[in-house]
C-alpha cells in the first residue's frame, strides 16, 4: 500500500508542473465541451481530439486524453438533464430522473447533484486505483506469453458476454476486429496478409481511422437518422442555484456510495459499457429505496447513482489498462493505442519503466476531478450555450474534424477513404444490432493476442498443453470457459424454474 502512496506523491510532483497541469485543465475543458454535444460520447471525443496530442510530450498528452475522458463523462450529464437527450449510452439512466427534476424547475440542483456524484464516485475510484494498481502490476510481472494470452481470452470472453444483447453478434463483431488487425505485415515473418494488393494496407489499418469512423461518423449518421432536435430547458444562473437542498443531498447519501462501488468494479470488466454500470447502480438504488414511487418522477438519488457510476467506471477501466495493458472499452482502447504510438509498453512494466507517466496520470486524475467540479458548477450556464449550436452546423463540423484527425495520422488520403468506409460500417452495425465495442477491442487486442499465442506455442514446440500446464494460464482459461458458459447456465435455470412453476 505504501508503494501506492509514495508513487502518488511522485505523481503529484509530475502532474502539478505548470505545463502538465495546463494540459489536464485543457483536456477537462475540451472533454466537457465536446461531451456536451449530443451524439458524441467519450470514445468519439477522445478519437477526434487524439491528433491534437501527437506533437505533445507523452505525459502531458496522455494526461490531456484522460482529462478529455473524464470531461466528456461530466459533459454527458448536462445534455441528459437539460435536453432529455443522452449524449452517450451511459447517460441514458441519468435522463430518467435528471430531466424530470429539470422539468420541475430543479435543473440547477440536478446539474449540481450530477457534478457532486461524479466528483465523489470519481475520487473513490481513483483512490482504489491508486491502492490496487501496484500489487496488481507486481502480480502481472509473473506472467509470460501463455498467461497473457489466457488473460486476453478472459477479457474478450467478458466482451462477448457483456457488450451487447446478442452474444453471437458480439462474438462476430470481435472477430471482425481481430481480422482487421491482421491486415498488413505479419510481425514474425514479414509476410503481407489481407492487403488485397493495396500498398497502403501493408502497414495495416490505422486504429484512429477505425475508431473515428465507427464512433464519430456512425454517431452523426445515427443522430441524423433519428432526426434529433434540440429543445433546451431554461438554465439557471448563479452558483447558488446549482447547490442541491439539504433534503436532496440526504436522499443521495447511499446513491453516492452505490454509484462509486458499482461503477468502479463494473468499469474494470472489459466490454461492460458505462451503460451497464449506470443501469445497475440505478436498479440497486431503486430496489433499496424506501420511496420507489418517486423514481422516474425526479428522484435526486435516481440521478446521483447512475451519474456516480458512470464516472467511477472510468477509474475502474484504467486499472486493467495500466496494469495488464488490456483496455476495458473503446475509450481506454484509444488511450492504449496512443501509448503505443508514443513508444510506451502498457502493461505491468509501465509502472516500473515509466513511473512519471504512470503516477503522473493517476495524480492528474485527482486533479482533473477537482478541476471538473470547480469548472462544472459555475460554468454550466456557459457550457449549456453549446447546446444552442444548430445541429445542421454541428454535424458537418464533426465530420470535418474527423477528416482532419484521420488525415493527421498518416498524411494519406487513403485513410480518409477508409474513414468513410468505417463510418458506414459502424452505422450498419448499430442498425443491425452488432455492438461496436467488441470490434474496437478485438482490433486493439488482436495483435498482442496473436503474438502471445504464437510465442507460447513456439516455447512449447507447438504443444497447446502449455496453456493448461501453467497454473495461472489454466485458471484464466477456466474462468473464460465459465464466462462463456454462464448464459447457458442462466438459460437452464430459467427452463427448470418454468418446469417447476408449470401447472
Amino acid at each position, binding site marked *: 500500500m505504501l508503494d501506492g502512496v509514495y508513487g502518488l506523491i511522485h505523481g503529484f510532483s509530475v502532474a502539478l508542473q505548470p505545463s502538465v497541469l495546463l494540459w489536464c485543465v485543457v483536456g477537462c475543458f475540451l472533454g466537457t465541451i465536446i461531451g456536451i454535444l449530443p451524439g458524441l460520447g467519450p470514445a468519439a471525443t477522445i478519437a477526434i481530439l487524439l491528433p491534437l496530442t501527437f506533437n505533445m510530450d507523452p505525459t502531458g498528452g496522455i494526461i490531456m486524453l484522460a482529462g478529455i475522458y473524464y470531461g466528456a463523462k461530466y459533459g454527458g450529464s448536462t445534455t441528459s438533464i437539460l435536453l432529455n437527450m443522452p449524449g452517450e449510452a451511459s447517460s441514458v439512466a441519468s435522463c430518467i430522473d435528471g430531466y424530470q427534476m429539470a422539468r420541475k424547475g430543479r435543473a440547477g440542483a440536478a446539474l449540481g447533484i450530477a457534478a457532486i456524484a461524479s466528483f465523489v464516485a470519481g475520487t473513490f475510484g481513483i483512490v482504489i486505483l491508486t491502492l490496487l494498481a501496484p500489487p496488481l502490476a507486481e502480480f502481472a510481472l509473473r506472467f509470460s506469453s501463455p498467461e497473457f494470452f489466457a488473460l486476453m481470452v478472459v477479457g474478450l470472453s467478458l466482451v462477448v458476454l457483456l457488450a451487447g444483447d446478442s452474444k453471437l453478434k458480439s*462474438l462476430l463483431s470481435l472477430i471482425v476486429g*481481430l481480422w482487421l488487425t491482421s491486415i498488413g505485415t505479419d510481425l514474425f515473418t514479414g509476410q503481407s496478409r*489481407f492487403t488485397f494488393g493495396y500498398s497502403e494496407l501493408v502497414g495495416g489499418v490505422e486504429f484512429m481511422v477505425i475508431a473515428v469512423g465507427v464512433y464519430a*461518423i456512425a454517431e452523426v449518421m445515427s443522430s441524423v*437518422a433519428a432526426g434529433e432536435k434540440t429543445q433546451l430547458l431554461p438554465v439557471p444562473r448563479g452558483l447558488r442555484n446549482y447547490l442541491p437542498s439539504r433534503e436532496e443531498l440526504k436522499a443521495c447519501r447511499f446513491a453516492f456510495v452505490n454509484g462509486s462501488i458499482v461503477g468502479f468494479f463494473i468499469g474494470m470488466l472489459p466490454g461492460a459499457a458505462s451503460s451497464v454500470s449506470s443501469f445497475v447502480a440505478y436498479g440497486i438504488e431503486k430496489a433499496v429505496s424506501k420511496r420507489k414511487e418517486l423514481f422516474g418522477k425526479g428522484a435526486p438519488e435516481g440521478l446521483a447513482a447512475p451519474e456516480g457510476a458512470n464516472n467511477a467506471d472510468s477509474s475502474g477501466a484504467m486499472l486493467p489498462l495500466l496494469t495488464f495493458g488490456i483496455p476495458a472499452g473503446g475509450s481506454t482502447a484509444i488511450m492504449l493505442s496512443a501509448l503505443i504510438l508514443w513508444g510506451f509498453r502498457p502493461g505491468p512494466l509501465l509502472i516500473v519503466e515509466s513511473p512519471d507517466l504512470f503516477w503522473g496520470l493517476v495524480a492528474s486524475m485527482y486533479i482533473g476531478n477537482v478541476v471538473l467540479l470547480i469548472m462544472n458548477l459555475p460554468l454550466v450556464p456557459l457550457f449549456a450555450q453549446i447546446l444552442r449550436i444548430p445541429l445542421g452546423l454541428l454535424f458537418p463540423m464533426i465530420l470535418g474534424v474527423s477528416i*482532419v484527425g484521420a488525415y*493527421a495520422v498518416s498524411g494519406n488520403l487513403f485513410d*480518409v477513404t477508409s474513414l468513410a468506409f468505417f463510418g458506414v460500417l459502424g452505422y450498419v452495425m448499430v442498425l443491425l444490432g*452488432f455492438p461496436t465495442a467488441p470490434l474496437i477491442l478485438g482490433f486493439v487486442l488482436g495483435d498482442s493476442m496473436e503474438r502471445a499465442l504464437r510465442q507460447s506455442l513456439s516455447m512449447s514446440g507447438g504443444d497447446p498443453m502449455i496453456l493448461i500446464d501453467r497454473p495461472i494460464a489454466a485458471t484464466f482459461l477456466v474462468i473464460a470457459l465459465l464466462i462463456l458458459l454462464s448464459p447457458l447456465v442462466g438459460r437452464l435455470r430459467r427452463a427448470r424454474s418454468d418446469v417447476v412453476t408449470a401447472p
Partner: protein
Amino acid sequence: MKRSNLFGGDVISGALLAALGAYITLASDQWTIMAHDGPGPGFFPLIYGVILLVGSLALVLMGLFKGPAPREEPLDWAGIRKALGIWLVFALMIPVMKYFGFLIALAILIFFFLRAIYPWRLVPSIIASVLTPIGFFIIFPTLLHVELPVGAWTGF
C-alpha cells in the same frame, strides 16, 4: 421458416460474414500454418476464420427460423435514407477535396446539411458555409499546426 425472414438483417449480415469467414479460412491456408519453430502467419487467422464462418452460419440459421419478435420496432427507412444520403455526400467530399482542397469541400458539405437536412434560409446557409471553413483554417493549420488534408485551398 417465414419467407420474410429470408431478407432479414440477421440473414443478410450472417451470409456476408460467412463469406468473409470462408475467405479468411481459405486465405490463411495459403500461408504457413505450423512450422518446426512454431505457428506461422496463417495459424491465428485460420482459428478465427473458422469461428467466424461457423458463428455466421449460426446467425443465418437463427435468422431464418426465428419467430416473430415481440413488438419489434419497424425500421425507419426515411431516417436510414437520410443517414446514407449524408454519408454519400461525405464520401463524395473525398474526390472533391482531391481537386479543390479541403476547405471548399467542407463548405459544400456544410451547405448541403444546412439546405437539405436541417433547412436554413439561403443567405445564412451561405454565410455559415463560408465562415466555418475559415474557422477551421484558423484553428488547425494556423493555431494548432495540424495540416489540413491534401491542401487547404486547392488539392495540389
